[in-house]
């Protein structure tokens, strides 16, 4: 047994067990412990990568390098902290009678199943299996979005299912085209979808087929990233589902979908670079920049008109995913490094925010921002958590989001100076959009009879401390992983 088998096996096994026993009172605790065990296994895996470099060879089904190892650890970590948060949260939902035993079973089983599909998507070397895992992630979460069975929840889940289903179907078409291009070059059909093999042979593929395949894959996986205009499912699914789900959807699923896009971009770049005259070698980059900038701008504007607190932060997620997509599209070592860092800090910050938002909406008894007031007075830990989290996500120093956005701005100034203008404006618009809502929520007068709830703020504190740490100093091993991943994606290292 190696670390990878544990990383994948623990959530899979837990999902099956919780499918049988998820309604028991110990299931919530079991969920936390298995998620923690998954995190321990991922640390073990990361330790192995740190010692030996890449896990998996040229033609193995699993492949862990410096690009996905940190995402695997991050996924397991946020999965564990959100499980810790979900224990009191779901106990409260169960006690209030909103959920029955059967739905608790469904919830716990789907939660672990979702973590399994994400880890599978990240660690597999086979682009077909990656697709299967991404679709599996949709299937695992769609019944969670409709968990409360309110008309809004049903609508959100239907939208999520249809839009992501179609999106992911387009990604499958892209995968078929990719396989079609690869099968002409790589003799063994079983190897023609393995990413490590494809990356080595990428310069031999037909550029036209690869370009068409990339467009399909970008739109397909981009739907799950939440890129505008395919984003409409995202705020609905985040706002109607249980809050621990919003935390993992926003913090993890979006990252994994973007990871898939970047893996494919590496291959497409390789194929197009061989024919710089006949085909534009920057096509994938330009497409990603366009989609990214559009998402960034549109989502920033939409922040202003939100009324539901979870919708507010899900638009903020779209905005940040747009920014990361833009950074990957811009290419070059500096922007790529910034994008990798931003993926990490966004996912840590955003899941911490969603955890806090979950407590806040329990305190106020609603998700409508007009009725959430005076959090700092009612429960200082929650109020300050929300304030600090939002400050971090808005890109203030000394948090990690500031560092990555700063690096990205420098890279943009060097490569496409004119684009710094929309970037800076977008950041200002998003900042205003967040704080105009946040100010009365944390500082306003608390309504009569508003009482603190039992809240576990440890996950939030730890995650925000990590974001702060990444803003002040990136540990050497992480910097080296980022650097190796940058080398892999952009062709040259930064350090």
């Amino acid at each position: 047994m190696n670390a990878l088998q544990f990383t994948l096996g623990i959530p899979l096994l837990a999902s099956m067990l919780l499918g049988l026993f998820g309604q028991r009172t110990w299931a919530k605790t079991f969920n936390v412990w298995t998620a923690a065990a998954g995190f321990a296994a991922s640390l073990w895996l990361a330790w192995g990568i740190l010692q030996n470099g890449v896990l998996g060879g040229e033609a193995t089904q699993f492949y862990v390098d410096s690009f996905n190892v940190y995402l695997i650890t991050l996924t397991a970590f946020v999965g564990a902290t959100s499980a810790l948060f979900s224990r009191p949260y779901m106990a409260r939902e169960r006690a209030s009678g909103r959920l029955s035993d059967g739905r608790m079973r469904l919830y716990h089983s789907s939660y672990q199943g979702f973590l399994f599909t994400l880890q599978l998507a990240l660690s597999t070397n086979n682009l077909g299996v990656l697709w299967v895992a991404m679709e599996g992630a949709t299937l695992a979460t769609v019944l969670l979005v409709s968990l409360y069975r309110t008309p809004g929840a049903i609508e959100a889940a239907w939208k999520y299912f249809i839009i992501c289903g179609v999106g992911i179907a387009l990604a499958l078409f892209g995968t078929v085209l990719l396989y079609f291009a690869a099968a002409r070059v790589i003799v063994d059909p079983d190897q023609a979808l393995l990413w490590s093999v494809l990356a080595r042979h990428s310069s031999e593929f037909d550029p036209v087929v690869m370009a068409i395949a990339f467009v399909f894959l970008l739109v397909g996986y981009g739907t799950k990233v939440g890129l505008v205009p395919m984003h409409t499912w995202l705020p609905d699914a985040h706002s109607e589902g249980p809050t621990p789900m919003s935390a993992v959807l926003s913090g993890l699923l979006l990252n994994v979908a973007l990871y898939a896009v970047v893996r494919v971009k590496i291959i497409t770049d390789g194929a197009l670079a061989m024919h710089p005259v006949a085909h534009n070698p920057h096509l994938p980059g330009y497409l990603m920049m366009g989609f990214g900038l559009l998402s960034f701008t549109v989502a920033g504007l939409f922040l202003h008109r939100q009324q539901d607190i979870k919708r507010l932060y899900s638009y903020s997620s779209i905005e940040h995913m747009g920014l990361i997509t833009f950074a990957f599209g811009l290419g070059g070592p500096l922007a790529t490094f910034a994008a990798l860092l931003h993926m990490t800090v966004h996912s840590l910050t955003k899941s911490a925010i969603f955890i806090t938002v979950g407590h806040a909406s329990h305190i106020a008894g609603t998700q409508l921002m007009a009725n959430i007031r005076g959090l700092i007075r009612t429960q200082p830990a929650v109020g300050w958590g929300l304030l600090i989290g939002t400050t971090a996500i808005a890109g203030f120093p000394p948090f990690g989001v500031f560092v990555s956005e700063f690096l990205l701005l420098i890279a943009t100034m060097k490569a496409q100076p004119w684009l710094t203008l929309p970037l800076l404006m977008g950041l200002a618009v998003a900042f205003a959009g967040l704080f105009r809502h946040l100010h009365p929520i944390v500082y306003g007068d608390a309504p009569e009879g508003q009482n603190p709830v039992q809240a576990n703020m440890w996950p939030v504190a730890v995650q925000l401390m990590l974001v702060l740490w990444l803003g002040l100093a990136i540990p050497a091993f992480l910097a080296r992983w980022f650097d190796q991943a940058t080398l892999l994606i952009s062709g040259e290292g930064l350090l």
Partner: protein
Amino acid sequence: MLNQLPLYQQAILTLAAMILFSSFALLAQNRVLAMIHVFAWQGLLVALTTTFVAYDSGAHHLYFSAALTVALKVLFIPWLLHRLVRRMGIDREMHEVGHPAMVLMTAAALVIFCYYVAQPIHQLSTSITRNTIAISMAVVVLGLLMLITRNKAVSQVIGFMSLENGLFFAAVAATNGMPMVVELGIAFDVLVAAVIFGVFFFHIRDSIDSLDVAQLNQLAEHDQ
């Protein structure tokens, strides 16, 4: 040119044309039961094509894929839809297609566009693959069109599954199928998706008393 091709390839081309035709039939059909039947026929045509390709190319794992398609797309999913539709008492319901002439004209234009996209692929110039790629892309796009133009949940699901047929057809026609582990994974996902769709029909009906998903519109961004 057609009679220079081997018999099996001619058969594959004919079947591809029939699959495309069945997509048009789905677009224009407004009876629920008939729609399910056309969908089952489309699945059967795809399975037949797969068998021919398997025989023609000697890729034996495709026989297995064909059997899987028959089991899933010809038998299980149509049976499931049939049962759900009967149980909900909507089997006589008409799903009106808005502007049928416009929809079919758009569909024809989309088919031409798909041929246009497939045209510049050089490595296709000698084979029948150019036709089949274009047709499979067209089936995918027509499935999308069906999703957009229909507002009943059952029709949307059939549109979605027909889109899936197009993808499977693309994989078979262009590359003799995907590796086995991928095909099994995809089949599993389709199976789970079909079951979840079934669950959703009941949820939607409980929620809005009909399966008209156009009524699911309270979450859209409204003006304040």
